[in-house]
């Protein structure tokens, strides 16, 4: 369970994450399980990366999303507990440290959308679904970057 005053950090290097158009994609590189976070969840993720404590995150979401703190705080806490349970974040060994410098004034996505409880979508069947597809010839033994035909067009 997330301590409201103790910072959490992304569980690198097991977890890789990117925020794209307000949606965070998270991959547990070790297990192959994929996750996505909706815009409010993505904002929480960015605030974790920025070094805020759970209390600070809840207050920030409350302010940026124009939602009561008593609504945002339990929602944020629930999401952080889910992230902890999935091994996507862990407690920061230097939890007593102050928030990292450079905390963004507003996180991508937060101010652009109406508030809804942040949601973590879990995709545990990605490796099974890969088996549905035909084999990729050359994967692993071909230099894709060298042979990427991105600009090639054939009539």
């Amino acid at each position, binding site marked *: 369970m997330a301590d409201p005053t103790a910072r959490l950090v992304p569980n690198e290097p097991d977890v*890789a*994450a*990117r925020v*794209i*158009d*307000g*949606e965070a*994609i998270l*991959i547990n*590189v070790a297990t*192959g399980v*994929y996750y*996505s976070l*909706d*815009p409010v969840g*993505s904002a929480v993720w960015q605030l974790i990366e920025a070094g805020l404590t759970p209390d600070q995150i809840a207050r920030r979401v409350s302010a940026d999303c124009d939602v009561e703190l008593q609504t945002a705080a339990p929602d944020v806490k629930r999401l952080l507990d889910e992230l902890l349970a999935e091994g996507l974040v862990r407690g920061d060994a230097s939890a007593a440290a102050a928030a990292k410098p450079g905390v963004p004034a507003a996180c991508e*996505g937060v101010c*652009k*959308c109406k508030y809804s409880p942040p949601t973590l*979508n*879990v*995709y*545990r*069947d*990605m490796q*099974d*679904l*890969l*088996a*549905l*597809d*035909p*084999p*990729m*010839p*050359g*994967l692993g033994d*071909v*230099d*894709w970057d060298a*042979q*990427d*035909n*991105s*600009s*090639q*067009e*054939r*009539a």
Partner: protein
Amino acid sequence: MRVIQWAESYWPTVGGLENLLERLVPALIDRGHESIIISNQLSPHLPRQERHGRVEVHRFPFLRAVSTRDVALFARIRRELSDLFVRFPPDLVHLHDVGASALFLMSQRQANGGPAPAARTAVTLHCVPAPLPVEGEGLLGQVLQTADWVTGVSAAAVERARTLAPDIASRSSLIYNGLPAPAIEPSPLPFDPPLLLCLGRVVRGKGYDLAVSAMPAVLERCPTARLLISGDGPERAALRRQADDLGVGDAVELPGWVDATWSDPLATWRTVNRATMLLMPSRPDGIWQEGFGLSALQAMMMGRPVVAARTGGLVEVVVDNQTGLLVATDDADALAGAVGMILEHPDKARRLGQGGRDRAAALFDWERDCVGRYDALYRRLRP
């Protein structure tokens, strides 16, 4: 209506789904549904964008990103997809099967302010997904659950979809596959010598090893019989070894695809026309079971009886003792028995072949039962 046809697999990959879409998409364009195809770039040698016939094909390395767990590549693909959705804003995104690539569509839909959320989504299951260990939290279930409409190419596929996502019962339906009738007439079934045909990707799930295993018993009853496995895939060399090890190498042909250049649209039909019967001993393999069995339909349209395994949607296409014979899965002895029975009873073979033609005409008509139903669905989903 502007439609993105999102195909887990597409030309130049060969299979039932790919063969169907090669015909279906132009037919839907003819009915006013402007379409492009998005599919997997399965090899770096395949161009990212090209025209295949009348259809623009866009390939993305979805599987490479997912299988290598490369989040940077994932992000790059998502941005490229966003650009494509801006250039071709769809009214409908139609997923053909749900594989790993669907994660990118889900991501596109959930993104804040992205161009995709306005589009409706339809999903067609072309295969019957097997039970998964984590169905409650899987991509497959979520894609089905959030679709505006779900179809399956067989009742088995529809039923499976409704099990995975019970809420879709009122927005799901069956649309059987079909094929346009070829411009050649069925030839008489050959019995001297007879030719047993397997037609399709040479992968474990097709069960062609069972056809090879059945050959010694078949040859005991009919020494002139030959087995032609027409297709290619990872199991081809193993089947060659298996036939040689069983001492039936001379009776088993494995020439690869019928027409490797794909220049003759009737080549496959001509091959079917040479056959006495089609064998489809498919088995559940990993995540999928046979959704429909397009090769079975091809054989039926050419008046060939089909010996098929009782699996997935095959049992809806092939009716036991009416259009062919059904046998248990993974049972080479039963397969050999059914083949022998047909070979020893030419009149029954012809009756089953005619039954197949009749059933194909009654249930799997290209324009009426396939293109027409997708057309009607698109009109129903029009924003």
